[in-house]
């Protein structure tokens, strides 16, 4: 239980740090668009990677417990939700890869990545709170 709380705390901190970093990017007016893009996206990708590892650990911990069929079904439903959100994130990364060569020219970063990453982070945090 303590481990789960610790992991949850880490997720929340990751999301918070992510927000702080993104807010900090607002001060980087003098940086080139490519620099701002790599810093913003790098922060997001690292936050998602942390949350993903934390989610895996949480699920494995839960599944190692003796679960009733109802608990197993709930956990499987949660896993399916996270997998779906993760697929959206992967799709957003694919869009980003295509757009990336234009960042040095000032092309905007696709909003899809921020949306998908936030949805995934929120979902993982929420499911772990509920469970």
């Amino acid at each position, binding site marked *: 239980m303590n481990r789960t709380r610790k992991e949850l705390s880490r997720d929340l901190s990751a999301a918070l740090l992510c927000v702080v970093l993104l807010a900090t990017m607002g001060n980087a007016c003098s940086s080139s668009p490519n*620099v701002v893009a790599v810093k913003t996206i790098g922060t997001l990708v690292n936050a998602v990677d942390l949350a993903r590892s934390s989610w895996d650990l949480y699920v494995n911990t839960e599944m190692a417990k003796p679960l009733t069929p109802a608990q197993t079904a709930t956990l499987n439903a949660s896993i399916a939700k996270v997998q779906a959100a993760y697929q959206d994130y992967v799709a957003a990364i694919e869009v980003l*890869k295509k757009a990336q060569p234009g960042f040095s020219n000032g092309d905007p970063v696709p909003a899809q990545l921020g949306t998908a990453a936030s949805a995934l982070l929120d979902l993982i945090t929420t499911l772990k709170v509920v469970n």
Partner: protein
Amino acid sequence: MSTAAIIIQALLTYGPDVAKAIQAIFANNNPTQADWDNLFNLAEKPHQWTFVTAPVVPPPAQVVVPLP
């Protein structure tokens, strides 16, 4: 919050590996294609959705009360 403070917070919260990654991102003022490829590789890191199987809880045994 300064960049140094953010990196110190990351170090305290997540450990040296993540702090190092964030420090590298912040210190980079001339990102190359290799930097972008490293980010994409991290994002697309093969993910193992192989969770351990939960042991099934057997249903409670029925108590048979002998008829008088």
